[in-house]
């Protein structure tokens, strides 16, 4: 990423966003660690973990927004990439338990001892090394997305067909990971983690560091997405979103562009999953449930499809609402609210919160858009999707 690309991609709102995330990433852990327990400003550890979870969701939402908001690919299976990244990290954490497990086997995780396995399956090799695990966090979701996308985009599977088969993909993985003989802990998944890189995962310091890392990852992901959508590549992506056939007729290799963003987006989802697992302390097959992936799409729709800030914001807002309502007396009504959110946002707020705000704010500013800062005009770039979508 050249400095030129960076400066071009940063307008005022993007800078504000980055600064806010960075400030949160530093202040919340500091307040948790330095201020005395019970002080009014001290953030309790459980909140640090909770907000860490939201930040991971925000990264996932960015990944979805990159392909849906800017390239028109509605993936209903992004939860699968998130979960695969999570499993890769979970496998590393399982290997770190070592002989401290219930059965005390130095090599085999507890569930394998329980299932009477005598040796580690080949695909678990190497996961005791952190760099390898990190590599796998990127490679496994990326590879799956690459193969899947290569098959799908090359034969021009688009629109709802693509959505349906991505849903089938995550459903197939859900069924597979539920099986005990698949070697990933079956129904219970991977849990009971002890430490990461030698630090106790339960400790306040580790949690604070993970939170900071998640915020950093969110900033990096945001910068990458910004760089892409403000580049020429981003213009082609938007062209594909709005008129795929026309873009192809103009001579662009549509499938290569789509494949690139789809794979990149899957890698980002994988990273989000990998950061998510040590903070919540468990990964199990329910993360593959098709419902989860669709829920992630609605975060993007709420925040504003085609606005990166909106996607991240939507993830935090919807999940905060979920935590708020499901833990109170309103819990039985949460699904009503979530369902209504799906319907109302698509009917009344097709541009989402940020997109609607931009559309409302732009005429007020009524300033001629400078040629360099043209990105602001694209921020509300959710054009009416054409019927051929």
């Amino acid at each position, binding site marked *: 990423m050249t400095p030129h690309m960076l400066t071009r991609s940063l307008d005022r709102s993007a800078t504000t966003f980055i600064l806010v995330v960075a400030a949160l990433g530093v202040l919340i852990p500091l307040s948790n660690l330095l201020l005395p327990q019970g002080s009014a400003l001290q953030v309790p550890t459980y909140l640090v973990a909770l907000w860490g979870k939201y930040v991971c969701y925000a990264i996932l939402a960015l990944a979805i927004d990159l392909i849906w908001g800017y390239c028109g690919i509605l993936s209903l299976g992004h939860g699968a990439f998130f979960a695969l990244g999570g499993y890769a990290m979970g496998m590393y954490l399982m290997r770190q338990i070592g002989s401290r497990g219930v059965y005390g086997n130095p090599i085999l995780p507890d569930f394998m001892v329980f299932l009477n396995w005598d040796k580690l399956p080949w695909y678990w090799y190497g996961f005791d090394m952190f760099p390898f695990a990190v590599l796998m966090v990127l490679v496994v979701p990326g590879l799956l997305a690459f193969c899947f996308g290569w098959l799908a985009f090359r034969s021009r*599977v688009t629109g709802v067909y693509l959505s*349906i088969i991505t849903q*089938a993909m995550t459903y*197939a993985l859900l069924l597979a990971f539920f099986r005990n003989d698949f070697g990933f802990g079956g129904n219970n998944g991977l849990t009971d983690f002890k430490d990461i890189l030698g630090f106790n995962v339960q400790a306040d310091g580790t949690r604070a560091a993970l939170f900071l890392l998640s915020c950093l990852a969110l900033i990096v992901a945001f910068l990458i997405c910004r760089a892409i959508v403000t580049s020429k590549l981003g213009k082609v992506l938007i062209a594909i979103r709005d008129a795929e056939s026309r873009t192809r007729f103009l001579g662009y290799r549509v499938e290569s562009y789509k494949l690139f963003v789809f794979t990149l987006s899957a890698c980002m989802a994988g990273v989000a999953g990998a950061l998510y697992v040590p903070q919540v302390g468990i990964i199990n097959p329910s993360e593959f449930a098709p419902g989860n992936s669709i829920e992630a799409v609605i975060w993007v729709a709420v925040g504003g499809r085609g606005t990166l800030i909106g996607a991240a914001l939507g993830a935090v807002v919807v999940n905060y609402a979920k935590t708020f309502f499901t833990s109170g007396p309103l819990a039985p009504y949460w699904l009503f609210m979530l369902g209504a959110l799906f319907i109302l946002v*698509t*009917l009344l707020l097709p541009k989402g919160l940020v997109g609607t705000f931009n559309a409302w704010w732009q005429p007020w500013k009524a300033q001629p858009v400078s040629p360099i800062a043209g990105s602001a005009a694209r921020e509300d770039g959710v054009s009416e999707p054409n019927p051929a979508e």
Partner: protein
Amino acid sequence: MFGYCLDRFRALILSVFLIAAFALPAFAGPFEDAVAKFANDEFSDTEEAIGAIAVSGNPLAFPIISALQDGRLSADPDSKKVFITQADDKIIDAATGAAVDKLPDNAAAVRLNNRLRRTVEAALGGLTLLSPDPAKRVAAAQSVFKSHEEAALPVIEGALAKETDKAAKQAFAEARAAIILFKSDASDNDKLEAVAVIKERGDQEALALLTSAASDQPPLVAKAIAGGISSIQSNLAMWSMVQNAWYGLSLGSVLLLAAIGLAITFGVMGVINMAHGEMVMLGAYTTFVVQEVIRTRYPAMFDYSLLIAVPLAFLVAGAIGVLIERSIIRFLYGRPLETLLATWGLSLVLQQAVRTAFGPTNREVGNPSWMSGAFELGQITITYNRLWILCFTLAVFAILLAMLRYTALGLEMRAVTQNRRMAASMGIATSRVDALTFGLGSGIAGIAGVALSQIDNVSPNLGQSYIIDSFMVVVFGGVGNLWGTLVGAFTLGIANKFLEPVAGAVLGKIAILVLIILFIQKRPRGLFALKGRAVEA
């Protein structure tokens, strides 16, 4: 004349004896002695008792031995009295048949071991071989076939000679063949004939019998047995194929029923209705409500509950479908991805609404009498509910096809499917067609719910478990042609059931999903894709 008198005299003496046996409990005859042996709690004594009772000709013999088989025979070791607990919990004295108030405190059930169980079965078989009811005779002959007790041979042969019922005659012949096959002094020719008879029977039990008889046989017979075994095995393999195909057809019919409404809405309107599964669920809950009302008000009409539920479910789901189309979906035309999200939200709301109204647990929906039970076809069992669902699905399909072909609405729907704008220019009110189409698709989903309530759990999650499968069917079959849905549903159903025994249920399902994903690469618009200009519109 004299002979006649003698017969009468004999009958008289017999009846006197019988009366004596009933009227004088104190009179201890061989039957009573035999019964008392049960109280010794020795397996050998029990065996002797069974043998003696089986040949006694006493009317209590059958109740005693069947009670012994079911563990309802108890004995008091002190008084040496034996009791039968009857099916209605009344207790009688086994030796006399007199009613008893309650079992003595130290009475314990007479114990059996595996060897004795076979003896009991054989004794029961002998006792019922001459029953007046042909079905009982067949059952008795079956049990002899399994036990192949040599002792039963004379009875079997006698029964075979005077048997007139075809099924019973067949069963007796098979039982006789089984005995002869295990009889050490039977001639080779007899044994070969026996093998042929058993081979003809061709089921799992015949296979087990031949396998256990294979050792210690003369070479000629052994060869015939080996031939019989392999022929039965290939026969059974064929039947298991037939069985898989039947299961596949049955699964396919369920898939077709769930997917057909989806195919209509997707084909005509290009709308992905994620709440389709919830329409199925509403149909199932309509059935539940209908049955509840019938159960409490008009219990005699229970057998008609489904006939009432089918039109009602169609109306309920159809009306909700029209409502959804008018209030949500019509604002989202041309935005299929948004429609997908909105209908997903709708499915969450409907599920939660049903969960609030009916509770999260499974509700009980009963099978009417004409849908319960099963019958045998060759070596496979066909349950009536699956058969009815298959017929019902095909009927719904045929009606739908006829509707699309011969009614004005059908004509308009086809026109809109092929070219919406041209249809609109020709004066077809496309928005009315859309609403009716959506109502029709939802109504059919409701009907599917009635059928699925008969084979699946009626819970708020009922629809969710079918939605992905139905999408697969539609995607595989292609839109715009109902035949595609039919072929897609049955192909997936049968492929699934043939993969299951090889790969296991879950892996089979995964394999099917992967195959469909690969198939989509080759034919992105399904098996029966629309061709021409309409495709890109």
